[in-house]
């Protein structure tokens, strides 16, 4: 039984690609066969987050246009053999791929992989419509910020109109200290407005940035709060019942400890 998942958000910069990369690596670590598809044609960067840019030979547009077979375009991950990336083109634009093409491609990949995860471009235009076409499940990524929540709400409405009813939520880049002081929307407010099943709450973590620069998603890193949160999401996708974790707060003593490196 394989599943096609689209990771989407409406707003840019909330962490769609980061989430895609982390879920992909996380599922591969659990032994699943996973293929990631970047559909952000013209603005590709999923390959960067996975550290695979220099291995790309062909891309999504080549496959859609029939120039190469899917197998040839897939880039295998350095560390996890059962994780593959189908990158997109950096020179073409979104009109190079249409929904029917991607749907056919997903159905082809579905035969061989446990999970097909599609990284959706920002926006609600053609690129979005293409990315969601073949998906069984949609994961909406948002962050505790009014504009991101507003856009997520719109996206959920759009998904409903496209008859995608299996929608899950990940709240990314949470700053626990700001939530506590009331400067950031809290999780209950967001869940109240969006009213879909939340499968992850990921804190803002500088390790996400440093690991992205290295091309190694944070998911395997047990020192990182975000890494742990992504591992939990992977578990929940696999049907495990994992409670949401309490965030560590950077209190005075914690900072003191850090300063003296205990």
């Amino acid at each position, binding site marked *: 039984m394989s599943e096609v998942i689209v990771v989407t958000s409406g707003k840019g910069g909330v962490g769609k690609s980061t989430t895609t990369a982390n879920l992909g690596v996380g599922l591969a670590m659990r032994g699943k066969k996973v293929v990631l598809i970047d559909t952000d044609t013209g603005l590709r960067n999923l390959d960067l987050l996975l550290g695979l840019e220099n291995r790309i030979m062909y891309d999504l547009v080549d496959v859609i246009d029939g120039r190469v077979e899917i197998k040839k375009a897939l880039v295998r991950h350095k560390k996890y053999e059962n994780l593959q990336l189908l990158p997109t083109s950096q020179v073409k634009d979104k009109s190079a791929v249409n929904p029917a093409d991607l749907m056919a491609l997903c159905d082809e990949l579905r035969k061989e992989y446990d999970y097909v995860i599609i990284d959706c471009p920002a926006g609600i235009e053609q690129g979005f419509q293409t990315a969601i076409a073949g998906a069984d499940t949609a994961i909406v990524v948002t962050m505790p910020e009014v504009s991101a929540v*507003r*856009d997520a*709400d*719109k996206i*959920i*409405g759009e998904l*409903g109109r496209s008859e995608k009813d299996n929608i899950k939520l990940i709240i990314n880049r949470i700053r626990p200290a700001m939530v506590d002081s009331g400067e950031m929307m809290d999780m209950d407010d967001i869940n*109240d*407005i969006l*009213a879909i099943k939340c499968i992850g709450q990921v804190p803002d973590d500088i390790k996400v940035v440093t690991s992205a620069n290295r091309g190694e998603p944070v998911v395997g890193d047990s020192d990182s709060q975000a890494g742990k949160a992504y591992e939990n999401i992977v578990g929940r996708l696999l049907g495990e019942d994992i409670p949401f974790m309490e965030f560590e707060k950077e209190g005075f003593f914690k900072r003191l400890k850090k300063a003296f490196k205990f």
Partner: protein
Amino acid sequence: MSRDLVTIKGGKDGFRLLVDSSASMEEIEAEIKKKLDANPGFFPEGTKFELEVADLDRSVKKGIGQILSQHGLGVELSARKEAPAKPKEQPQPVSQAAIQHDGNVEAQEMTVVDHTIRGGEEVTSQGSVLIMGNVNPGAQIIAGGSIDIRGTCRGMVHAGAWGDTSAVVIADRLMPTQIRIANMIARSPDIMEKNNFAERASIKDGQIIIEPIER
């Protein structure tokens, strides 16, 4: 939209049941069942429907009565214009609404939406609107009549959009960006407080007021 065999219309003085007299009993029965089961619990027990028919068979009328009573609902035969065969079985009720609205008793279809209205969505209706869900920020509800929201209202609501100043807006939690009734506009305070009781907005003394209600 194709013409339904059975139409339920909500008016000021109850619900009316319109039945296509060309349909068979089985068809009518299935249609009524479908309508009632689509929103179980929507019609409170004991709700009476006014049956409006041109020339329905007596057995069909009886059948409809049976179906409704199975659902805990009742039926009243209409004594309106379309029943020439039975002249005045019941005295014609003079409804309160008729007096207030200059004899305009034309009941308008009520729009019922059974899901959350999300940002960017719009619901427009000539009559009243019932939303069974939330109205999220960025959404718009425009109704000729009143608006009832069984959930939290955070969007923009416009009741009485074609000038009906008696229209009201009711919500379990009323915290909209704007409330408009007829030609009046009220905007929300810049810092919204969160209440846990239902409220009603209406026009009183030339301005929109909001008051808590029981429900």
